């Protein structure tokens, strides 16, 4: 089953190779012609994506700084930045906070809430649907800096949340100081759920109603239909969505910087904040780049995990 599926897919992509009648010359000319239009975009990607990545990996092996002798004559220091990073007591904390932030706010928060809203939207009236969609998407369309300030104003000690709580007689905590991670996680869920919701809405629309109906006739209840029919049918979308929001959340900087500046102390210093602090506050570009490279690796681990486990076509 596995073999036949993949053969079919390969065949669909490259029919010419299995076609004994095709003339080699024409085929290669055709593929060059087909390749040509994407050349500019590949060049642009190489210039603006691969370039900086390669640059930051290179820089991470030097002691480049923004001031002092190393700014004028940076020298090659091998793995020194990485060994120093591993010995830094703040580094494991930062990695842990990053993983907590990604899993709590993206994998669980945005993903599950987005799916739940998308499922519920399928059963409500058109008016409700429009209102809910507008509210959820509202947070998404805000520029990141505006959303960050809104979240700051909401969670601040004299902010909206505490004023609401005071209205019902509860003396609210100082969220940004006492529970900084909770505050930034909730803010990121608020901001990002719309994306997951829209992905899942589109995916659910593609689930053929016959199949759901067949499941109903077979006597499957709501939960059973969700677990055994709907989720397997939208598995591809789940994998793509998880990958996108994970990488996006891994890179969240503005939201946390505006809300807590990574503080108090280091209690909300995720890796992007740590990299920024080292590179631009402590002015050690080389060391900051080493942290950025570690972030690339963590992103790669998450991506491979999703591709291996959930992507359809592997074992389906």
């Amino acid at each position, binding site marked *: 089953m596995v073999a036949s599926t993949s053969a079919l897919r390969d065949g669909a992509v490259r029919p010419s190779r299995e076609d004994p009648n095709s003339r080699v010359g024409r085929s290669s000319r055709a593929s060059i*012609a087909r390749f*040509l*239009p994407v*050349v*500019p975009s590949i060049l642009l990607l190489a210039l603006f994506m691969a370039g900086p990545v390669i640059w930051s990996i290179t820089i991470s092996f030097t002691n480049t*700084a*923004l*001031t*002092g*002798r*190393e*700014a*004028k004559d940076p020298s090659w220091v091998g793995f020194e930045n990485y060994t*120093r990073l591993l010995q830094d*007591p703040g580094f494991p904390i930062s990695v842990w906070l990053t993983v907590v932030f990604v899993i709590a706010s993206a994998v669980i928060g945005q993903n599950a809430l987005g799916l739940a809203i998308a499922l519920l939207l399928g059963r409500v009236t058109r008016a409700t649907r429009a209102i809910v969609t507008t509210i959820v998407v509202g947070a998404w369309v805000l520029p990141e800096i505006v959303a960050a300030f809104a979240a700051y104003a909401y969670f601040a*000690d004299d902010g909206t949340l505490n004023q609401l709580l005071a209205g019902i007689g509860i003396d609210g905590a*100082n969220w*940004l*100081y006492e529970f900084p991670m909770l505050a930034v996680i909730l803010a990121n869920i608020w901001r990002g759920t719309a994306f997951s919701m829209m992905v899942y809405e589109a995916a659910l629309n593609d689930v053929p109603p016959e199949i759901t109906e067949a499941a109903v006739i077979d006597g499957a209840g709501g939960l059973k239909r969700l677990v055994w029919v709907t989720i397997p049918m939208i598995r591809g979308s789940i994998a793509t969505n998880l990958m996108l929001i994970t990488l996006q959340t891994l890179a969240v900087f503005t939201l946390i910087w505006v809300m807590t*500046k990574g*503080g*108090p*102390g*280091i*209690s909300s210093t995720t890796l992007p904040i740590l990299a920024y602090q080292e590179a*631009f*506050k*402590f*002015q*050690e570009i080389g060391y900051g780049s080493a942290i950025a490279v570690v972030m690339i690796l963590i992103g790669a681990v998450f991506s491979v995990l999703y591709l291996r486990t959930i992507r359809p076509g592997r074992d389906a």
Partner: protein
Amino acid sequence: MRFSRVLAGVATVSAAALAFAGCSPAADESKTITVVYQKTDGFVALDELFQKVKPEFEAANPGITVELEPIVADEGDYATKLALMQQSAETAPDVFYEDTFRVRSDVDAGYLLNLDEYLAEWEDWEQFNDGAKEAGRADDGSVYAVPLGTDTRGIWYSKSVLEAAGVPLPWEPKSWEEILETARAVKAASPDKVAFNVYSGKPAGEGSVMQGFGMLMYGTDDTLYDAEDQKWVTGSQGFVDSLAFIETLYGEGLAPAPDVALDGSMWQKLFGEWFPGGQIAGTIEGSWSPSFWKQDGSYEWPEYVDDIGVAAFPTQNGQGDGAVSLSGGWTLAVGAQSQNPDASFDFLAMALDRENALEYNIANSQIAVRADVAEDPAYLEANPFIGFFTDLVSVTHFRPATADYPQISAEIQAATEAVMTGQMSPEEAAAAYDDAVIGIVGDENVTQ
């Protein structure tokens, strides 16, 4: 055909890109000098100075245009932006505003032009006092920057708040313990007021060292940097004691709540709301404080003349001189990559001549570094505290003048933040600082 159209499109875009790149004003570069400096809602004095000098300079030097590029950012971000601009000759400024403590480090980085030749021909240079001449000197003995003024630091207190707490005036604490006692008395009398502020934590930046930890450290029997041996001191009791004072102040709730203190804009509240509103008893602050309260200042408050008292900050147990102050100050420098260094220096000299220096020192409540400004009656009468803070020069200390200082300062800020939030004990934070210092300067440049 389709592809040819795509190719044409690509060609057009590339041509446009090339044309765009070719646009950079290479030919006119030497006719324009760019001036980069900091401007915030609380600091407009320099902007006003340059706005005034620009037309005068352009009139005196026909054909040369001065381009003012204020950077709206706090001191840390300003330094980072300036350093990033220095990475390319295209964006590097001709004249810029530079903190004295970054001069040596930035000279090492090759950002500053050696001014020796220019200063030798500048007749005003002899008006600058010796401290000011040293401030811009680098390890090679040459001068790279000219100070705009200097500052000293001490205690600013609210007479009305202390009176309400039953503290006899004038308040002249003789040791750290007396500060704590008074602060506890204020806290007991009015629990919702800030009893005593010592700037701490990373968001306050260099302020956490100059108006914070440093004022404590230099009043102990130990020092941060052994200037004779040129080594950084680790494992000192004075360092732990200074952190312990901060821990006590924040731990007992005498200082502002840590979450407020960790907002980089707290100083604006302090000047704009707390002192005028009688919500704070005392703080360590710089000689420039009246610049905010004076007429047309950012937080105008005419009553400050009567309500504010000042005192020298005591040493730990009253040892030594009994008082301590730290001095810094900012300079103007010429960019090493400037296309027109002559005009750039002329601009710097005009901005720092007698008349402009006088105006700037008064507007920004700076301690004058020019002898002719320091004796000017207009300067001496500018605010009631200027004499007191000028006298503090006799007990003042300067920061370690080494290229590593900015990085080490950042480590001190991290140590104060760890202590004020209770994440580390003073001993732990001091140990973490020691490790960081060894990492920055190397084992051979550290002493116990």
